[in-house]
């Protein structure tokens, strides 16, 4: 993985001092709260329902053993012994004190980490496919470009006061695990007809109150031009994105209002101008320097068949886990292992300090010192020898981290909701927990197949409800929590925005309603299609009939 050189390290140290000075000025009253708020947000510091919350950048979701251990240390020393992995592959601590934040930043800098631009109206943490560098069929490891974009966007002087936040994601395979079409800019690494590697650039995707699938803007951007192209998109946005209405300020509004052709034309004009200057051309040497950090570990030459693995499959628990939580690795004899943070009844994405330390040990023992955070709020050991999997699983079981549900109905994406968040209208965690409990039977989950439930506690859609096969949105109805169901969303390569099913449900009705949706699917499905496929084939009406008809019956 990427390691800081003296310049990266100095940058982060300077930032620690800079933020410490901002905190000092705030405490002395030299900055008002109105002035301090955007400054602290640019450093990932929120004031939430109960306390401050600090969001730490995990660039493209990659962490080292040392960094995991530092999270555990910070969780114990400054927080309440746990942290939360987010849908931007970041880590959040929910209980830091403002006066401690400079010390936390310094502890993070010790392990090459920071909170730079994890909030605020600037370019946020770049996300990427969690299987980068491990999965077959990848054109190029997306983390190479992600790191280049991370450096280019860090303290970009022109783009730190954008109309609104700006999120970039990169995918290196046809399968999209990074939800690129729901980003302000989504980059897909492709090959053109001549066999050259370059980038397809989507602009204007997003969720929130106006969900959009991104428009295809750059058909094929050459590798050396990508920063110039990104700079062009950002400049058009900075100049013409709306600033009069916070709800219309994202680039998705500008791009969809102008339309793909006009937006592309404006970007191309800007791009040509920037190229004339020539200073943003990316030298091949720098690309190679960064790529070298992401060179795969020295894999052993192994047979893909592993007697240890095959023998372990006789254990039903292991077999179930292997079925959902393992993904084929590009190297024979290796596997990609997903560690689910969706234990039945736990908070999706939460992890205790003890678990962080224990997982760090597993990274040491089985995982080449590396782990990934997924936007679905799980962890991934990208390179595990198949013969080590039974021992890994046994250890995960002891840690209560062996839940075999990756991609199944209980693997729910869920924002912190009204339990923590100042913006939320309703709680989301307790609803996720109740759904998990209702569907805890593993055989039933397997029968339902891939089924993505995504839930947000407010219209801002941090829980990606628009992209859920089943999406749940918490709303406030006169001070009482209420939940709307959406069907048909997808954050994958077949991206789509879910459609609202109908009137919402109270907190004591929503789990039953979800079960009726699932029952309707079982009634309607043909062969092995997923709920998403059934929905796309039959539309909303049959689902709606079954879900609301039974509700009427239940009332009598």
């Amino acid at each position: 993985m990427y390691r800081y050189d003296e310049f990266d390290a100095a940058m982060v140290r300077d930032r620690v001092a800079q933020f410490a000075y901002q905190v000092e000025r705030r405490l002395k009253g030299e900055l008002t709260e109105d002035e301090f708020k955007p400054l602290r947000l640019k450093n990932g510091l929120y004031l939430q329902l109960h306390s401050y919350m600090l969001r730490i950048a995990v660039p493209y979701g990659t962490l080292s053993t040392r960094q995991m251990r530092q999270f555990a240390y910070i969780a114990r020393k400054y927080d309440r012994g746990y942290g939360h992995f987010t849908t931007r592959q970041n880590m959040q601590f929910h209980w830091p004190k403002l006066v401690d934040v400079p010390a936390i930043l310094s502890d993070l800098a010790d392990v090459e980490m920071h909170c730079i631009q994890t909030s605020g109206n600037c370019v946020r943490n770049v996300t990427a496919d969690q299987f980068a560098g491990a999965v077959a069929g990848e054109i190029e490891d997306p983390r190479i470009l992600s790191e280049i974009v991370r450096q280019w966007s860090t303290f970009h002087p022109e783009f730190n006061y954008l109309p609104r936040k700006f999120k970039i994601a990169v995918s290196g395979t046809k399968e999209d695990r990074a939800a690129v079409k729901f980003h302000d800019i989504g980059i897909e690494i492709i090959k053109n007809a001549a066999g050259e590697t370059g980038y397809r650039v989507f602009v204007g995707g997003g969720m929130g109150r106006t969900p959009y699938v991104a428009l295809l803007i750059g058909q094929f951007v050459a590798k050396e031009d990508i920063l110039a192209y990104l700079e062009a998109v950002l400049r058009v946005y900075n100049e013409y994105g709306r600033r009069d209405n916070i709800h219309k300020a994202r680039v998705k509004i500008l791009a969809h209002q102008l339309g793909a052709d006009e937006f592309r034309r404006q970007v191309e004009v800007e791009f040509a101008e920037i190229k004339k200057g020539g200073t943003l051309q990316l030298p091949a040497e720098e690309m190679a320097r960064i790529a070298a950090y992401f060179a795969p570990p020295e894999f052993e030459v192994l047979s893909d068949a592993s007697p240890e693995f095959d023998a372990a499959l006789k254990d039903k628990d292991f077999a179930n886990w292997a079925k959902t939580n393992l993904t084929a690795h590009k190297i024979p004899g290796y596997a990609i292992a997903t560690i689910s943070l969706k234990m039945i009844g736990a908070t999706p994405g939460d992890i205790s300090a003890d678990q962080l330390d224990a997982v760090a040990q597993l990274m040491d023992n089985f995982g080449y010192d590396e782990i990934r955070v997924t936007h679905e709020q799980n962890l991934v050991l990208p390179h595990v020898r198949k013969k080590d999997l039974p021992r890994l699983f046994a250890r995960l079981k002891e840690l209560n981290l062996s839940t075999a549900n990756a991609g199944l109905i209980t693997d729910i994406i869920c924002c912190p909701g009204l339990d923590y968040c100042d913006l939320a209208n309703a709680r989301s965690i307790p609803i996720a927990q109740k759904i998990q409990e209702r569907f805890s039977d593993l055989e039933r989950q397997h029968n339902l197949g891939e089924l993505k439930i995504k839930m947000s506690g407010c219209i801002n859609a941090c829980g990606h409800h628009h992209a859920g096969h089943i999406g749940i949105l918490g709303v406030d109805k006169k001070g009482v929590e209420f939940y709307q169901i959406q069907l048909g969303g997808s954050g994958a390569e077949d991206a789509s925005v879910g459609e609202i099913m109908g009137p919402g449900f109270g907190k004591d009705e929503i789990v039953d309603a979800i079960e009726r949706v699932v029952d309707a699917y079982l009634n309607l499905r043909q062969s092995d299609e997923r709920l998403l496929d059934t929905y796309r084939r039959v539309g909303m009406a049959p689902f709606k009939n079954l879900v609301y008809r039974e509700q009427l019956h239940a009332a009598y």
Partner: protein
Amino acid sequence: MAKVVPQILTANRLRDGEVVYWRDGNWVEAYGEAQIFPDDASADAALAAAQDFVKRNIVVATYLFDVRADGSPVKEREIIRAAGPSVRPDTGKQARHV
């Protein structure tokens, strides 16, 4: 005539973010000790007085919210804010002020 709803005044302490409530010209941490204002006039007067603490950088985000006759909050949000996350009873005020 408008219905009179009792209110409580709240804020977050700047230094550490702790949720605090107004009581007799100062701030307390426990919801149970919060002063209940029977009418708009007394509530608005407290909110105005609280601005001095904002100016002195002691608290931020002051606001009033409605409560019932027994002093319990009307909105779910304030119930959770007064206690702590409903999914983590070991954290927040609920873990301290039992």
